[in-house]
């Protein structure tokens, strides 16, 4: 059971208080009648199913009743951030990949000078 930080209440609360509402940042086309059937179908039915970073819409249903967004890892269930409606995620699959690339570059530079201890402790 996840522990979710509500960005409006400013507290970590139990998952039971929240309802998941699917993929975040789905915008309803401003002029639906101007959409082709295919475009409208994409908006209605097509959703990402990533193995990794996912931006999700949640509501603090039995708390403040506010909708907000979660950046969650679908494999590890880590919640990397929560943010309010109208805000953009600070962490995306792209920023994370760039960060990991930089980290592995730094690590390979470091391992060439020092021997690794093999200690898996965080």
């Amino acid at each position, binding site marked *: *059971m996840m522990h979710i930080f509500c960005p409006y209440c400013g507290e970590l609360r139990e998952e039971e208080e929240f*309802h998941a509402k699917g993929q975040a940042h789905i915008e309803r086309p401003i002029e639906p009648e101007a959409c082709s*059937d295919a475009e409208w179908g994409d*908006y209605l039915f097509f959703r990402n199913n990533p193995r990794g970073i996912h931006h999700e819409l949640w*509501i603090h249903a039995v708390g403040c*009743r506010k*909708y907000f967004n979660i950046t969650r890892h679908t494999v590890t*269930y880590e919640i990397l951030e929560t943010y309010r409606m109208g805000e953009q995620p600070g962490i995306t699959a792209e920023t994370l990949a760039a960060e990991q690339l930089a980290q592995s570059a730094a690590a390979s530079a470091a391992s060439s000078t020092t021997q690794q201890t093999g200690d898996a402790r965080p």
Partner: protein
Amino acid sequence: MTETRTPSRRTSSGGRINRETSLNFTFNGKRYQGLAGDTLASALMANGVDVLNASFKYARPRGLVAAGAEEPNAILQLGSTESGQVPNVRATQQALYDGLEAHAVSGWVKSQKDLMSRFLPQVGKLGGKFMPPGFYYKTFMAPASLWMTYEKYIRKAAGLGRSPLENDPDIYDHLHQHTDVLVIGSGPAGLLAALVAARSGARVILCDEQEELGGSLLSMSGDCLDQTLDGQPASEWRDAVLAELAACDDVLLLPRTTANGYHDHNFVTLHERRTEHQADIAPVNSRGARQARSRLHRVRAHRVIMATGAHERPLVYSHNDVPGNMIAGAVTTYLTRFGVAAGDKLVLSVNNDHAYRAALAWKAAGRDVVAIADARSAPSGALVEAARAAGIRIITGAAVIEARGDRRVTGARVAAIDIDGFKVTGEVEELVCDTIASSGGYSPVVHLAAHTGARPVWSDEVHGFLPALGAPMLKGFDACGAANGSFSLEDVLVAAYASGVAAVEACEYPVADTIVPAVSALVEAPMLPLYQVPHDKPTARAPKQFVDLQNDVTAAGIELATREGFESIEHVKRYTAMGFGTDQGKLGNVNGMAVAARCLGQTIPDTGTTVFRPNYTPVTFGAIVGRHCGALFDPMRYTAMQEWHVAQGAKFEDVGQWKRPWYYPQGSEDMHAAVERECLAVREKVGVLDASTLGKIDITGRDAREFLNRIYTNAWAKLAVGKARYGLMCHDDGMVMDDGVTTCLAEDHFLMTTTTGGAAAILEWMELWHQTEWPELDVQMTSVTDHWATLTVTGPEARALVGELTDIDLDRDNFKFMEVREGMIADIPGRIFRISFTGELSYELNVPANYGQYVWETLFAKGEKYGLTPYGTETMHVLRAEKGFIIVGQDTDGSMTPEDLGMQWCVGYNKPYSWIGKRALTRPDTRRDDRKQMIGLIPRRKKAGDERIVLQEGAQIVFDPDHAIPMPMVGHVTSSYYSPTLGHGFALAVVKGGSARIGETVFLPQADGSTLEAEITAPVFYDKKGARQNV
């Protein structure tokens, strides 16, 4: 099963048992005595009970192997009464109490014999080569049509124990805990880590699955050269630490508490058994209250420290399942902790120093150690030297390759072995003994660390799997001690101290001074990896070498699985059932992987890693359910008039969580008679329905009207103050999701009603659009469902009756259909809505909920002369269906557009804003002519009595009853009733292209082979012009 009583195996002194207090218990109906402090297992062992069960598949006799949670055989049925029956109890984890009754689980063998004689008489005898892995699949899969028959027997055969047939009288609690540090396991690692955290001021929970806290410290003894801590014997150090922890305000000590599941974000479920060491049903306390039998602690911890220790691995040799074969550490524990020797003559087969403790303790108890077979060529540690000094024979470079005996070990075959060549190299020596203890090393108990998906990592140093610390699924999770591969006491304590400090720092407390206890020196030599012991015959032909005792999986079975192409350990497990059941691979997993790896010519990590899922040990359903049973299973919602309904003998129906009056039977009426009477009363006189459960949402704000325009399919721009309108709501895919009447109370104030079941979801739905797409709209919504009691007064006499209660002018021209008025109702300020769900003249009275029953009773006081009749939801359904009014969720299923329902009149095609669902109505799929459309059905009446035909709701409709099977199904019945007003049955249904087929005949094939016929009609059956509601 009968046992010959053998002399007590109890030692003359030592152990943590109370020799003054004897306890009576029975096993398989026979009486025995044990001591306070015994587990059921140690008491059975002390009484010389060797055979505790017949094995799962081969029905071989089995006895105790282990002393803890990893015990695979001693799974017993407990309980002296029917309601107190508990299946799946490990005798090693059950404290003995006076009056305990236990039974072997032997139902399986009987069921299996039954299965065999029924379907495979030619097999003749059980087990042996007739039941290789995959036996069931291979034997019973054909013919496929018989699988359902086989399955019934196989399922029955696969059980371990049985559920009670009576209700459980016990109560179970759930507790929600928040803590800084949760320490799981109270051996030296857990105790020191908890001590560091507690001294630093952190809130600490320390739990352990055993009866007493202390873990491995409880079985430490000077007899086996065990070390001292700060110069004290282990038990004294333990006592001192526990006393200090117990004195801390913010430390919760939980013995008999198993951490069964590790879940996302450091959420851990602890199962605390509070009375199971006292009786099979919880005792009643001095105040006469039954105590909670167990507590499920739902712990959210900032840091979790897993100090769960290690499970010893047995060696895999032939006939290693005969009673008397045990793991070495268990032999030691039974001696040092419970004062019981497993037998008289011991042969030990080991690959490491630590296991020598069994021989030392055995010798100290005055028993005979026949020999120690050590797989290493030159063992040299301090324990080895102590054994040599005690005159114990050590056979180096050798192992027990086979046990002799049937219902008890009678001897051991020992031979020199070549591990790399996997063969026996020397002469086989026959030793006479009654007990064989083996040790193949130690597997860290990593189960919890794997529950969130972090795969354990193989360590070539430890020769076992370690928790994947640092994995993202293990944030805030640490492990120390043997659970993390530290086996020497010094290493354990240093690691535990570091874990404690790390936890304290993560919780931002200053770290208090604590010194790692000094440990007396003990030199241990490294182990030599050995899993399956070679036999002088090849594995496939050697006597059975068991890998998983609980599931009867042998080394030969795993070899067969790999030969048949199952190369992943996950496939091998499923094919052989290794690690299934309550065992979850505790004893056999690594050995099984080693066998598979050997057969495949690869390393253990190449063969795969291992996955564990909650729960670590079985948890009773009672503990999971807690108090959420009986009346507390689900919240129940009642209207303000509930008392009256109950007093009138109403039958209730569940609508969501609401209890709604279904019908009000009079005398001996059944539902049909009551509903017919209620229907006629409404059509002819006047009835009243408690409609309080309808969802009510109060909507205010400057843009409330615009908001409704966007959410509803129809137009709201011109709805005047004081007027009401029916509205239909769609998802953006154009499918109907809810309906209801919304009233304009003021320019910026509306009251929306929703379906009873949809109220909460609709509020969330509207908030979604407001908060995510249209935050610029000035609109506020709040649920007022519970604030108002609603009385629907309906029927020709409604005006006269309501007129007696209210000062509101009910004149037909002053208060028209679809209007609202505010005023006094039975002297209570309220609102009256002139809306109708029955087709009759109707007034919906709304009064504050607290006055609901008062107004209801006042109405009845005035209503007698009008023939006022209360009616329930069933009558409501008949009346509305006669008028063709849909119920969303009954007549719709999320695939119906307003047009499919024939409700074009309720679609604002020209509204300026493209409302939710509009665009979808022009998609090609929603424009198809052959969509299922709402129509009416009237069963064809061919003979007298056919007017009573009521089509079954959900019945499938076909156009051609003579079509070959499978017939194309073209629709189904959604609502169907007998109408006393019409004098015959009728139904609402959906049929492909139905609205163009009015007057045609359709067919409804019945389960009994007959076929009913019905005529398609318009879906309005009564007062088609709607004159009656407008009078």
